[in-house]
């Protein structure tokens, strides 16, 4: 009986001691790929003040939690547990349809009026500043996956306010005298939005990006007074990687959602030779070619996960494209977010010079930055869920 009584205490102690041993013997990680954040390492604040204030103990607790053995597996299993127990909104962010592999974001609320006013006010300042330099600008919104892919969502889910928010934004832009356009309006009705986006990522896929590119060129032509013919979409020119895809939303769910997402490419062969690219202004630093910037994933081993960023392009503060086979001799500046990355070469292929700017990675006043480039036209191109792009203001 005595031995039987000791079974549970010994088993519990064995589990705890094993956990402790694994904690001390497992190598520390600096970063969590899955959580997209730095982990606490064994660098602690050890001053007397830090000890008295409890800062040290908090850091040690974070360290033990962050470096706990098999942390990613524990977290992954938790997501699976949530799915198995019927949780509607996993990690409080996403609806998941395990059968089809779709991850759909939780419905958005109406953006508060003051937030929209602030956003439009920032652009009004930019518009005014650029006008003073005689530089015309327009504001484009790309359709975001979160706004247009709402199925499969549970039947009782509230209405997503993305489309309404976007419409309110464009109304306010117009009211403030800022030229604007919704790219979704220029995408043909027959295009199924479910074909335009990755199932497990918040970005569009190559087909969706291409629709965005066609819509963008149509709107650009109307503004710059050109009749550039965009490169038509050629289904036979679609080349896809066999690597598994690491979707941004699936990463939040610890890659627990099985899916058939793939990074695909669709561009003419001459892209590989027609550009000279600078990371910055013309002549600044090293010269790059198309393959240095676009599609790093093509060179990755097939068993490695690829993401939207490695599939298409990282976000750079400024890229300048010089094109030796252009339709227009204009210098265009595009201020953008990551949606643009998949099609930046497609757009740049029509102009003599294109500068792509990402304000999240630049410093200083955007007006000064753009004015210094002295472009013929500036286009702001953001996905329609993005309401925080001009942090400088």
């Amino acid at each position, binding site marked *: 009986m005595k031995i039987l*009584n000791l079974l549970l205490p010994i088993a*519990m102690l064995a*589990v*705890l001691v094993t956990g*402790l041993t694994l*904690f001390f013997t497992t190598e520390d990680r600096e970063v969590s790929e899955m959580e997209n954040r730095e982990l606490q390492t064994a660098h602690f604040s050890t001053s007397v003040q830090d000890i008295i204030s409890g800062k040290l*103990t908090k850091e040690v607790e974070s360290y*033990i939690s962050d470096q706990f053995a098999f942390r990613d597996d*524990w977290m992954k299993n938790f997501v699976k547990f949530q799915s198995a127990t019927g949780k*509607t909104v996993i990690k409080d962010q996403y609806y998941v349809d395990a059968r089809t592999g779709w991850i759909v974001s939780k419905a958005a609320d109406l953006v508060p009026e003051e937030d929209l006013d602030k956003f439009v006010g920032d652009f009004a300042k930019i518009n005014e500043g650029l006008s003073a330099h005689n530089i015309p600008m327009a504001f484009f919104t790309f359709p975001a996956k979160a706004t247009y892919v709402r199925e499969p969502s549970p039947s009782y889910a509230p209405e997503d306010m993305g489309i309404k928010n976007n419409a309110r934004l464009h109304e306010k832009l117009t009211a403030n005298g800022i030229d604007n356009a919704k790219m979704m309006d220029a995408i043909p009705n027959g295009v199924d939005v479910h074909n335009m986006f990755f199932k497990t990522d918040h970005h569009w896929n190559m087909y969706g990006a291409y629709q965005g590119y066609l819509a963008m060129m149509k709107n650009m032509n109307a503004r710059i007074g050109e009749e550039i013919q965009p490169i038509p979409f050629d289904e036979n020119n679609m080349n896809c990687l066999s690597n598994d895809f690491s979707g941004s939303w699936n990463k939040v769910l610890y890659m627990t959602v099985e899916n058939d997402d793939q990074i695909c490419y669709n561009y003419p062969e001459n892209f590989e030779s027609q550009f000279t690219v600078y990371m910055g202004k013309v002549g600044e630093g090293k010269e790059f070619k198309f393959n240095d910037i676009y599609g790093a994933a093509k060179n990755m081993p097939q068993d490695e996960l690829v993401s939207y960023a490695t599939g298409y392009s990282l976000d750079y503060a400024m890229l300048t494209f010089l094109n030796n086979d252009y339709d227009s001799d204009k210098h265009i500046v595009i201020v953008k977010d990551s949606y643009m990355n998949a099609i930046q070469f497609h757009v740049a292929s029509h102009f003599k010079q294109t500068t792509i700017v990402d304000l999240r990675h630049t410093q200083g006043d955007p007006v000064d930055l753009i004015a210094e480039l002295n472009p013929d036209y500036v286009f702001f191109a953001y996905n329609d869920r993005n309401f925080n792009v001009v942090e400088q203001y």
Partner: protein
Amino acid sequence: MVFSSLIFLYVFLPIVIILYFISPKWFRNTLLLIASLFFYAWGEPKYVVLMLLSIIVNYIMGIVIDKADAKSKRLTLLIVTILINLAILGYYKYAGFFIDIYSDITGQNIVWEAVPLPIGISFYTFQAVSYIIDVYRKDVKANRSLIDLSLFITLFPQLVAGPIVRYQTIDEQIKSRFTSSSDLMVGTRRFIQGLGKKVLIANPMGEVADQIFALSAGDLTTGTAWIGIIAYSLQIYFDFSGYSDMAIGLARIFGFRFEENFNYPYISQSITEFWRRWHISLSSWFRDYVYFPLGGSRVSHQWKVYRNLLIVWTLTGFWHGASWTFMAWGFYYGIIICLEKKFILKWLEKIPRLFRHVYVLILVMIGWVFFRADNFSYSWDYIKTMFFMTENGSYDYNTIVYLMDYAIYFVAAIVLAIPVYMMYQKWSETKAENSIGFAIPLRILQTVLYVGLILIITMFLVNATHNLFIYFRF
């Protein structure tokens, strides 16, 4: 340090258990004292000094009171010691509240920088006061060993959230105790049960309650309001009783036997019974050290009984926090218990049992609304919504999501809030004692299930976003 944390579970606990059982018996109290001080200092490094000060004052005063012969001298010393204890508690817990009242009355603007409340101060102060009163009453002899008395006050299983252990309960155990294999098994099982109650039920219920109580009164529907208060009722029960289970279980592992602190309060059939089953150590503390000294129910006039009850229950509310809402919550129970004494208990006897349960649950949940809400205005709005007295509608998306997403937790919580598992456990243990053929598979199965439970708890802890114990702030 929190029991339901990875550092406690995987670092502190195994190290302390191993060191405890390999230490010679004469060193075990010192080891537990060091571990307890470390446990407390981990979360409150600077307040460990305050606790040590409290211990030293009570240690010295205990001996002085014990030695004093004259009753008047003993009484004076007792009052001085209680005042010192209450002054420390009052400074940290109640000063801001009274200064606000004084400012409101006089119109003077007194600058008072709020001081953070040292964790567990209400619990260890009450333990110290009970010790001093027991010494004064000659129920116990003053402890001459500073280490032993310090251990009584700081013993880490009950230090920060009770149960409020009486010195008489563990006096002998501090001096001499033995951990049998049965103690180890029962203690381990109780600890894991408590941890499971906290991590697997109280925390998810807390997520629901926090989100719903964060909604503005206008965004609440009747369905959501009920889900919110049911979730909070379950959260606070599983949070606090889970902590008590862990405390009792850990103490048992180290050879101590604490009194029970909860006895399935939600199966009560009257509010009077509810308070005999809820936070028993606090209720009995107030009964023995406030209610009885006031005369209890042995007084010349019936109104004095009601007065005594109202005083005790208002103080019980005030013990939970320095705010009018806590006082009102305590007073609310005082009124109900007075009414029950006067006539409701007789009425209750005449109605079917089911209605008695409904009566208790509704009154308790209304009480929890005051307890949980930040102010009276929100509490009233919340209660009005619960009873369809607003035009907010009966349900919305939130109502459905909370029901769908947390159904499994609600069901588990409700089942475990009634003594079904306890009855099974009693039955199986009795059978195991009489039959080795039953005991072997039972213990093996128990081990597998409880180890599985630890692993599931670990999975929740690695993902933890909601983990503080509600009673830490008292």
